[in-house]
């Protein structure tokens, strides 16, 4: 962009979006394409006693009917998959582990024929005892969801495994910083509180969809995936093929929020395509989406030691995450959710045990916030519990403990570029926080305010590669496997490339992921797409720039250090800036196009026994302040005002940045007040969006302000996709406490929980008054 121009803000594909012209995966139609449907388990835990698909196979219009047993028999298929453990059968083998697990898959001429075939399947189950909650699963002698220890496979570099064979513990993460016993002994007061988060849905507007084709020894899928290259690897393993023979194409996604991180439906579509010998489309209905991937329900107990003057000296965290019937990414998430419980606080002694627990509910995986939502709900709620008991102002108590530049996080690594205090101060000012603020009351309506401040890592180590082609017209194609899912990846990468090369934005096209053509990118998640994917794009442009300087200096007949790239030209630094347009350099070089390559890699790892090391290449920082009103007669909470603040480093696209931050507030309000998957005996009770509640526009605060703390000089980009979500729930919970004196420890904060809390509080007050009344007057 030339100097003085207004930076682009918005989406480069906005027109296509609002006119309905974005080609999503569901729009893919191939000649002869069959439609897939799946018969799902009606049992939470059962042996498959009999499975007869013969009548389904005979139905006209049915091309393929597959069972887990069929897949197990095939020598060309490895019938298990998963991002860490290969514990998930493509279709149930031998037994089913949750209600909704795929048992039989059908490909047929249309959806009606596929459904009709499923209706002709006879299946008998022998029910097994099941475990649904954490305590069920950990009870001595509890039935095992997986009898055998899960098989590990090729996975991410940061995964730490501590198995507990013979139990339902899927994985454990340990962190030992300092000396916890000494720390707790040194504390003047020790607080122990337990907080709960329910299983939730990511609810992307677009449900999972996959179109698969198997021809000429190659597997091609069009998939709604946040991780094209890992999906390629998983499918290659399933098909026992070299990864080069698998091709994953990812059109724009209609939202993901973590739901589309790891393989789920793609192996089913692909084995059906193999068996049907024709392309197959598999598109989940919303109720199927509900049982495909979820957010971990969690229980976190924090034992926190504090000095009388309000310094946190020790924290012991016991975290249990319900990972459901299959591990998915649970084995890694417990690490983030585990060390995350230390929060953005300077605590010398930290001890964490964090567990992923197998149960007979649908698998839990990645969810915007990635374990930090559960952790932050716990530690930021407990901050106010402690402040109240010690008689401290929650703002001052936080300011006293927030990490400052160079202090160490729970993992022992110093935290740099640290802005927690500034962020907390921004939101406190915004909401009008004041230590003397008392709740206000008007009739049955009380008002209160709450604060919260959180820290989130980004996956480390991680790698992104980008390739850019500078065409002989001076335009640029950016090849990356980063995924556009509505967050604005294409726009962000185009801006970064255009400004780095100094060309106008309309000359840049960002290509959608296609693993045959676009280079490796680890994952479009963990708030890393603009940060890490974008860094690779910038490095690739730098590579092209170096080539331009080299070639241009030759063409201009001056030394390399005498040329510069400016105004879309390679020119001499000295006036009168004799030069060539970029396209001209390419043409004269006779290279066809200049190809730039950039690899961005972060380093780090944690010691498996102590959790000490480097957990994150940088830290995503946020704070929140909420004001609520509560109806004391019904317990109903209304969010009146909300101020959120985040540190994005440098903002690439202001409109999109603000929308991400606001979107996170919507997610958080929903989780604070409404969302919850309700199970009865492993059967989900609210698998529709009429019964599973999301926040509506009406529930959003009338005053919603997102503060962006920028640091343009430093120039680093910090991810914002998730950053501002974790503080929302506790800010609201703390405001409810401030208004009512009722501390709800299990999300969501329903009116009924608040009303019960008010009754208990009133009963306790009454008991205290009675006790005083009974004391003899001296």
């Amino acid at each position: 962009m030339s100097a003085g121009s207004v930076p682009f803000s918005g989406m480069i594909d906005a027109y296509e979006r609002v006119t309905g012209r974005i080609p999503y995966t569901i729009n893919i139609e191939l000649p002869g394409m069959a439609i897939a449907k799946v018969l799902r388990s009606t049992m939470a835990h059962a042996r498959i006693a009999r499975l007869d698909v013969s009548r389904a196979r005979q139905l006209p219009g049915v091309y393929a009917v597959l069972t887990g047993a069929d897949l197990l028999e095939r020598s060309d298929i490895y019938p298990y998959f998963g991002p860490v453990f290969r514990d998930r059968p493509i279709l149930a083998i031998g037994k089913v582990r949750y209600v909704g697990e795929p048992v039989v898959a059908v490909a047929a001429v249309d959806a009606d024929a596929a459904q009709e075939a499923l209706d002709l399947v006879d299946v008998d189950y022998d029910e097994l005892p099941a475990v649904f909650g954490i305590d069920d699963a950990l009870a001595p002698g509890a039935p095992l969801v997986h009898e055998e220890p899960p098989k590990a496979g090729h996975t991410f570099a940061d995964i730490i495994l501590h198995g507990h064979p013979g139990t339902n513990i899927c994985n454990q993460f340990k962190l030992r910083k300092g000396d916890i016993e000494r720390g707790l002994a040194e504390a003047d007061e020790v607080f122990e509180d337990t907080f709960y988060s329910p299983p939730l849905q990511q609810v992307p507007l677009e449900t999972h969809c996959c179109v698969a084709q198997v021809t000429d020894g190659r597997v091609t899928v069009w998939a709604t995936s946040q991780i094209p290259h890992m999906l390629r690897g998983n499918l290659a393993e399933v098909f026992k093929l070299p990864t080069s023979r698998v091709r994953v194409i990812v059109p724009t996604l209609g939202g993901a929020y973590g739901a589309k991180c790891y393989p789920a439906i793609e192996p089913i579509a692909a084995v059906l395509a193999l068996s049907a010998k024709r392309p197959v489309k598999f598109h989940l209905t919303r109720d199927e989406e509900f049982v495909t991937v979820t957010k971990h329900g969690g229980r976190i107990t924090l034992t926190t030691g504090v000095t009388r003057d309000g310094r946190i000296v020790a924290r012991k965290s016991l975290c249990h995450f319900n990972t459901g019937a299959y591990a998915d990414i649970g084995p890694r998430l417990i690490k983030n959710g585990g060390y995350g419980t230390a929060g953005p606080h300077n605590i010398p002694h930290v001890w964490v045990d964090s567990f992923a627990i197998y149960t007979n509910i649908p698998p839990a995986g990645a969810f915007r916030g990635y374990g930090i939502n559960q952790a932050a709900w716990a530690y930021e709620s407990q901050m106010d519990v402690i402040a109240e008991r010690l008689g401290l102002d929650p703002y001052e108590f936080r300011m006293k403990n927030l990490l400052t530049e160079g202090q160490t996080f729970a993992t022992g690594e110093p935290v740099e570029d640290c802005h927690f205090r500034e962020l907390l101060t921004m939101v406190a000012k915004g909401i009008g926080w004041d230590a003397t603020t008392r709740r206000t009351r008007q009739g049955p309506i009380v008002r209160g305010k709450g604060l919260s401040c959180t820290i989130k890592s980004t996956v480390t180590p991680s790698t992104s590669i980008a390739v850019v082609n500078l065409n002989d017209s001076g335009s640029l194609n950016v090849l990356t496997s980063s995924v556009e899912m509505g967050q604005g990846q294409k726009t962000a990468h185009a801006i970064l490339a255009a400004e780095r090369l100094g060309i106008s934005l309309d000359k840049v096209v960002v290509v959608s992921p296609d693993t045959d053509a676009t280079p490796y990118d680890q994952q479009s998640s963990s708030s890393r797409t603009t940060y890490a994917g974008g860094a690779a794009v910038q490095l690739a442009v730098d590579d092209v720039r170096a080539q331009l300087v080299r070639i241009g200096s030759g063409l201009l007949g001056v030394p390399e250090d005498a040329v510069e790239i400016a105004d879309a030209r390679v020119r001499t630094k000295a006036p009168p800036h004799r030069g060539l347009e970029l396209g001209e350099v390419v043409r004269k070089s006779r290279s066809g196009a200049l190809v730039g390559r950039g690899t961005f890699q972060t380093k780090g790892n944690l010691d498996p026994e102590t959790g000490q090391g480097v957990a994150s290449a940088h830290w995503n920082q946020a704070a929140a302040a909420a004001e609520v009103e509560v109806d004391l007669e019904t317990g109903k909470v209304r969010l009146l005002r909300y101020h959120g603040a985040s540190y994005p480093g440098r903002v690439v696209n202001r409109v999109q940045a603000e929308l991400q931050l606001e979107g996170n507030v919507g997610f958080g309000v929903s989780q604070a007040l409404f969302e919850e998957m309700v199970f009865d005996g492993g059967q989900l009770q609210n698998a529709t969006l009429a019964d599973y509640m999301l926040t509506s526009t009406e529930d959003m605060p009338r005053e919603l302000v997102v503060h962006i703390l920028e640091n343009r000089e430093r120039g680093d980009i910090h991810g914002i996709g998730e950053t501002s979500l974790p503080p929302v729930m506790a800010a609201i919970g703390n405001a409810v406490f401030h208004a009512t004196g009722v501390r709800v420890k299990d999300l969501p904060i329903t009116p009924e929980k608040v009303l019960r809390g008010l009754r208990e509080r009133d009963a306790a007050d009454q008991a205290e008054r009675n006790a005083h009344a009974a004391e003899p007057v001296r």
Partner: protein
Amino acid sequence: MPESLAFHEPTSVADAVGLLARYGGEAKVVAGSTAVTIMLRNRLIAPRALVSLGRIQDGLRSIREEDGALVLGALVTHREVEMSALVRERIPVLAETFGTVANVRVRNVATVGGVVAEADYASDPPAVLLALDAQIEARGPSGERRIPVADFFRGFYETALEADEVVTAVRIPIPPAGTRGSYEKFVTRSSEDRPCVGVVALARFDGQRCADLRVAVGAASETPRRHPEIEQLGRGTTLRGDVVPTIAAGYASAIDALDDMRGSSWYRRRVIEVWVRRAIERVASAASQR
């Protein structure tokens, strides 16, 4: 579907009734299709045929005043009731209640006939229709009949309609001049959720004294409830002071509140008590402002 689902679009009520009779209880009437589509998709119903009322004229789309009553045709949408100048003038609480249902996208298609025939306990309009002594007009093979709302709702998704009857209109007597009404919808979850409890209060004042009080509670039990023996406590009073909490407590203990994801039975009773009191207070204070 195991069998293909027939779809009929009769052009008269008589033809619709004929079709329903032919299928003998295995056909479902569909109008706005906000409810039927969800039930079909979730396989809660498995009819052999759908009988769409979409092409029927027969006055099913009109809102008119007739013999001291408002007559809402079965195909009138929620949004039309909400926005109708006639309804707003004659029975404002009716427009107000239909205006609280779901969101504008749903209200643009969901019909008056549909909401009564579906008989979902968590719909807003049934309670207000009960309080207003409305009648459901239905036509079957033997002609038309009027069913008082109090007799119409029988249980969860259960009405007094015969399998071959079609709701053609809802007839609502216009309350005497000076009647004030208020519908108080209480949601425990998102603002677009169905009510946990809905309370309608109607009061007519004769000077400072209440000449008539009607209170109906919806969404808290299988069918909307009115308790005349409790309502009458308000008559002759100013609807101030102790009588209002007494009435509210009476409703809370008289209604056998149900348990669902929107609230437990215990919680609903607490809310009924609060909301009945507030609804009466609201009509009482509106009355005093005249």
